């Protein structure tokens, strides 16, 4: 079982709400910026994610989502 946190960095506006709502401190703001000039979140501690979906739910820009995958599911 793997947890995949997908971040579309070109959509992100670096508001940091996803980072603020995450209780497990999975995400942090990257030092890098996307082409709009916003810092975007990156996954720091993937393994501590609870798949609660809070970060996905609060993102106003539809830039982050979480999913769970079986290890062998990918063809």
């Amino acid at each position, binding site marked *: 079982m793997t947890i995949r946190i*997908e971040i*579309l960095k*070109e*959509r*992100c*506006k*670096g*508001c*940091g*709400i996803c*980072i*603020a*709502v995450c209780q497990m401190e999975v995400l942090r703001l990257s030092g890098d910026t996307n082409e*709009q000039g*916003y810092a975007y979140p990156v996954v720091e501690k993937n393994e501590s994610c609870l798949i609660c979906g*809070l970060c*996905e*739910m*609060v*993102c*106003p*820009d*539809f*830039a982050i*989502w979480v999913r769970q995958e079986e290890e062998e599911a990918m063809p």
Partner: protein
Amino acid sequence: MNRDRFHPDHPFLYADFFPTVWCAGCGIGTVVHSFIEALKASDITPRETGVVSGMGCSRKISECLKLPSFSVSDGRVVDFSVQYGLEHPTHQVVAFLNNADFLLTGAEDFLQLRNSGHRLTIIYINNFIFNTAGDDGFPMTPYRRKSFDGSADLPFNIPLLASSVGAEYIARWTPLRAGWIKNALMEAFQKKGTAVIEIISPCLVYDSESRRILDAAERMQFYDGRTVIQNFSPLNKLDLREGKKIVLGTFVDSAPGEDKR
């Protein structure tokens, strides 16, 4: 790899709308997100909806959704939604209103609902601001705070106003409680009459002008720290003023389901 890089809500959104026009961290985006989640979780056919929005920042809501959606002129949102609902009785009509659509130019439309029992879900995004002219007061400008510089009067009590036009479902949430907005919408979709959901989503521009808060996440937490959830609290106690907790929750529900908080 690329095949997976679609947001779960991708089918509902125009891809070329991104990045959105809203300011970084504006609650409007979260409200749209919650709306889509609620739509997916309830058994509404996406074709059988009508999304209506008016002027200003919330206008863009109807432009980003791949649903039957309409941007109408300032203040005609409720009027249009009612007529659309009468013409399409099976459709779930959802009106996204901002301050001006709801209380300024749109106020008389809203008051015309007067217990008519139209099936309509109103999402009122209250950002405490009416800011085109800068210094005019507005029904929701906070007491002694600024549209730019100070309202001498207390803001409206929206849940009380909504109940006086006969809303069957009234709730109030903040964008940080996106899950509750989704729940509230799903409950509102069950109703046969009007549902009003107020979202306290203060405008970032206003906040940065008054230099109280620095960024979106801090602002969200600032407001969330000042809220308290009290379901079914008396409607006349729900006004918003400085130094008083903002009461969140479901205030009126004509037919409460089993899963009541």
